[in-house]
């Protein structure tokens, strides 16, 4: 009887010890996981607060009167803190933009996919390499090897359709969402 009791106790304690350890592991894991979830919940609003605020997002639309631009002229407007180039293209510039074999381009886009009306080119004036502002809006500026824009930072050349033709930039100048409110007013955004 005594021996059986002792054996039983040994078995019982061994069992409870294992059981106890498994229980501890489970509790530690779940408590740890809860802690991680809690920390993530606290971190989310803190990190997300660094994303653009509502007033920043609210500056999303502008209207631009382009009646003052003669063919060949361009102007720069601020939209979302970035310059937007609006260019009134001459027939020669339109022809240059359309006469390119799209297959030879780095970022293959035909001119027709980048304009709504061939004489008006609207692009975001931020070099797609590292974000500098290309020059070329003024007649006295450098226009690069392709009669469009030239980025002075690292030497990217853009053509009359704002497409990258040479230099380190990987993509064409981006086309912002825009529409013609009338023949001479463009709404950007």
């Amino acid at each position, binding site marked *: 009887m005594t021996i059986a009791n002792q054996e039983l106790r040994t078995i019982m304690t061994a069992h409870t010890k294992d059981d106890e350890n498994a229980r501890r592991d489970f509790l530690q894991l779940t408590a740890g996981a809860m802690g991680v979830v809690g920390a993530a919940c606290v971190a989310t609003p803190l*990190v997300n607060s*660094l*994303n*653009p*605020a509502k007033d*920043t997002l609210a500056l999303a639309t502008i209207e631009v009167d382009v009646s003052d631009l003669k063919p060949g002229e361009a102007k*720069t407007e*601020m939209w*979302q*803190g*970035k*310059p937007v180039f609006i260019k009134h293209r001459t027939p020669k510039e339109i022809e240059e933009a359309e006469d390119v074999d799209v297959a*030879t381009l*780095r*970022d*293959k886009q035909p001119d027709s996919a980048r304009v709504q009306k061939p004489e008006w080119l609207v692009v975001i004036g*931020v070099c797609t*390499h*590292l*974000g*500098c*502002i*290309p*020059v070329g809006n003024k007649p006295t500026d450098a226009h690069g090897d392709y009669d469009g824009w030239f*980025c*002075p*930072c*690292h*030497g990217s050349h853009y053509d009359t359709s704002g497409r990258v033709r040479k230099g*380190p930039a*990987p993509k064409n100048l981006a086309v912002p969402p825009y529409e013609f409110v009338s023949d001479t007013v463009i709404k950007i955004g």
Partner: protein
Amino acid sequence: MGSGERAEFKNPVIGWIDERLPLFTLMQKEYGVFPTPRNFNYFWNFGAIAMFMLVAMIVSGIVLAMHYTADTELAFDSVERIMRDVNSGWLIRYIHMNGASFFFVAVYIHIFRGMYYGSYKKPRELLWILGVLIFLLMMATAFIGYVLPWGQMSLWGATVITNLFSAIPWVGDSIVTLLWGGFSVDNPTLTRFFALHYLLPFVIFAVVFLHVWALHITGSNNPLGIEPKGPQDTLPFHPYYTMKDSFGLVLFVILYALFIFYAPDSLGHPDNYIPADPLVTPPHIVPEWYFLPFYAILRAITFNMNIYFLAGIAGLFTLLVEFVWREKPKMIAAPYALPILVASLFLAALGFIGDQYPTLGIPFTAAEDALVSAKLGGVLAMFGAIVLLLVLPWLDTHPIRSARFRPLFKWSFLLLFVVFVFLGYIGSQPADAAFGPVPLSLLGLLCTGYYYGFFLVILPFLSRFEKGRNLPKSIHEAVLGKGA
């Protein structure tokens, strides 16, 4: 009672405090009698000098923050107000501006010394890694700080550097928007940069504390690179090295003061005295001088890496691991080393040529098929250059520490130093500049190649094959001669 032994103090007030909080015992142990190798040269001053610069930056920075306004409309003018109207404001700002440069001077020499004398080797690996972390934190702090005056270089430097993160596949653009808090570097960016610029120096301070703690566990390395074997090899830190450090510090501060008073803007860029204009990019954006070598590495990668190129690199890397890193090649393909080498070089060349001459029409070499774009490649190369420093203790496993006894290591390391300085020159030039008939971008690529080759090929190779000179038996014997 505090734990451990306490020193005896005559002054009853000090004794009373020390019984309750053994601060004075600690100072006595770590900076008073602390056993320090007796053979330090002046290169060993720069840890203390860097510590002084950190304190100088924090003190001048806190005062500047009391006069500065972090708002895009006001920031530039508030800095000009500091320069013109605030009492001694010009002095405090010049101390801070040039202090950043001199902090980097001290830290670069400190890192150079650590590499030359093998201070990163066992048992000081963690000490070294903490040091590299301090260097990284310093670069972040300095970059953010340069944005605060909101001049042209501030804005456009910030634009170029934050745009680097857009190279990260898929999430890059979201990360950049998150960094900016908008769609360009603007007011939200400036205010968070100011908050971080105030925070990070204290993070640096904490890591410096860990760095010094780790130093006091292992003790200092020394120019011979052999461990002190007993009291005859060491001197108490005070007064011997408190004096030597103070002397070196005075000379350093004289040079620093010369810049503050006589050439305060010589290390900066004049464009940063033009208020930031988001519509005009300066013709030549250059970072501060202490970033130039890394900037040159960033710009050295001007080609896209397509599948051929990366396969070639993977082949070469396999050979490197098998035949240079490992004691004995394990790979089944070991007998085919030569064919693998030829095939790898062919693939790398094919990929490179296909990218440089797209008109050849080699399949899968068009820019949109690139696995790693030139931009991402540059970013990876730049950050990789610092990651190499982190793993340096495992790349150089040669048992001899000091370059004095390793002539091959010494000369390849000094060449690395020259290459690093030349990379700095390349970084300061416009991207399309040339050095005589050779375009600088090519030289930048070659120098980047040597930088990587030094760490990945030369160091592991020398670790296995350099014999080295005989080490002296002990520090005191080497310093004082056999008679001592």
